[in-house]
């Protein structure tokens, strides 16, 4: 039974709801339009060259893309093992009394604003990297023949490596929260079957639980990558923002896509400069859409009820 008032109400709710896809559509279209002058003028060279000179109106975001890839890779390599390990521990090992409080402490990490991570990174992590971690790295692995190149050069502390470390800390709670949901969703029969065969607890985890939860755990990590990719303030404060040279050294004070926007938007005095900055945002947007869609498909396939809905 549908009355007229019902139709009006449904129409109103539908109109409000329609604003959500419209917003996404509007953001994408407007960024495309505003970036168009830069897209047509520089074409593919915007993505693969790294000369960024507002005076000569030459814009290539290659170094920013490189910096983003490097920091994101460092972040995921550091964060994923710790986050997934902690998720497994919280679900499979921790006694009930510890599970709640520990889980809460880690969840709160996700609430800390990125500017506070940035402040902490800038005043605490950067000096630590400059005086202790990076000289130690340079003195040990830095002496090896090939990998040594990663740790060569002048040590300033404000560099891609520090940016990656801060990002790792920031994406840790997201990966952990989602992995925890995924591991919780593994049916008990998997555990019982393995234990009934005489497996130790680690054998159960490594041969029954993790293979079963693989798609979801990978999805969690991909979600972490998506977050790291667009993170701005914390990285901007620690990554250096000084050099657009693409070198193998992680000690390069580089840029990321997001930090380049944050650093330069006030300087966009010409239409082309403005358009080039919008194109950086467009790249971030498109990659975020693709990566998020992929992550959510993976997580959904793993049967987790909800993928840490607010994250």
């Amino acid at each position, binding site marked *: 039974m549908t009355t007229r008032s019902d139709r009006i109400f449904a129409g109103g709710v539908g109109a409000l709801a329609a604003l959500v896809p419209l917003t996404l559509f509007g953001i994408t279209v407007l960024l495309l339009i505003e970036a168009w002058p830069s897209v047509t003028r520089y074409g593919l060279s915007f993505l693969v060259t790294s000369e960024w000179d507002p005076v000569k109106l030459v814009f290539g975001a290659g170094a920013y893309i490189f910096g983003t890839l490097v920091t994101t890779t460092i972040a995921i390599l550091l964060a994923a093992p710790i986050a997934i390990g902690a998720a497994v521990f919280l679900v499979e090992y921790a006694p009930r009394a510890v599970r709640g409080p520990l889980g809460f402490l880690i969840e709160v990490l996700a609430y800390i604003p990125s500017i506070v991570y940035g402040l902490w990174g800038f005043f605490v992590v950067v000096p630590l990297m400059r005086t202790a971690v990076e000289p130690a790295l340079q003195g040990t692995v830095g002496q090896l023949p090939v990998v040594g190149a990663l740790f060569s050069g002048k040590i300033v502390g404000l560099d891609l490596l520090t940016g990656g470390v801060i990002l790792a800390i920031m994406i840790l709670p997201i990966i952990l929260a989602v992995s925890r949901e995924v591991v919780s969703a593994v049916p008990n029969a998997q555990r019982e079957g393995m234990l009934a065969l005489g497996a130790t607890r*680690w054998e159960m985890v490594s041969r029954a639980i993790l293979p079963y939860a693989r798609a979801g755990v990978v999805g969690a990590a991909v979600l972490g990558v998506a977050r790291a990719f667009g993170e701005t303030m914390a990285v901007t404060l620690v990554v250096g923002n000084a050099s657009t040279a693409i070198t193998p050294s992680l000690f390069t004070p580089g840029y990321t896509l997001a930090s380049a926007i944050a650093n330069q938007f006030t300087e966009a005095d010409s239409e082309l400069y403005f358009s080039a900055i919008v194109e950086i945002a467009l790249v971030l947007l498109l990659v975020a859409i693709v990566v998020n869609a992929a992550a959510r498909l993976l997580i959904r396939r793993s049967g987790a009820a909800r993928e840490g809905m607010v994250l």
Partner: protein
Amino acid sequence: MSTAVTAPHFALPERHRVIRRRRAASLIMAGLLGGATVFAASLLVIIAGFVIVRGLPALDLAFFTDRPKPFGVEGGGVAPAILGTLEMGALAAIVAVPVGLGAAIFASEYRSGRWAAAVRFSAELIAGLPSVAIGVFVWAFMVRSIVGNYSGLAGALALAIIMIPIVARTVEEVLRLVPGGLREAGLALGAPRWRVILFIVLPTARAGIVTAVVLAIARAAGETAPLMLTALGNTFFSFDPLRPMAALPLQIYQYAVSPYDDWHEKAWGSSLILVTVIALLAAGLRLATRSRVR
């Protein structure tokens, strides 16, 4: 089939050794996983510790009531930033709450069909957008065209876009927890569907809806990058939504990148205020959701 299955006949000591090795491996891994958990949890303790220890000395009454002073002048506070965050948060909520609620009701109560899935999926994608990209969108949309300068209104729009998917997704989850029997009872009594939704479903889910809104505000309050591109910041008291507006995260950034120790201390102090507010909201939420929703 016909041959008997032969058990691997290890000598007894050999078998014990294998078992011992497997147990040891299991214990070592348990230790490593536990270590990872403790490490992750201790990060929070470390960061919170720094914010509290370095932030507390900056706090006095003037810090909450005064405006930032130029360098060299004693004292000064972050009152405009606190008020700016409140004003932009409120403006953003005015937009985000109805839209988010509408999307949640649509996705949960009219869930038949492709449109509900489209709304849900686009909410997920917006939630996954880098906030700086949303900032660039509002910068291009309002700052560079409609309004023509940096403004609190533009900041509020950016925050609203960040809040909408959080409200929509969280409220939808809560509405799904409302038992179907309640809806059917209302419909059986002859109430039209809109009355059932407005007067039965929403009131039942009230606690969860409040939770969702608070959560969204807590998340938006800490956003910095989109505000940099839209509200810009201001060191004076200004409530005009068409002018640049101060906000706590912006104030923290400006203090942090300054070369003065005094301002660094103020950055920690502002962070302490911001983190305390967000932590209180989060803790309140946890209590509320524990008793009602689950």
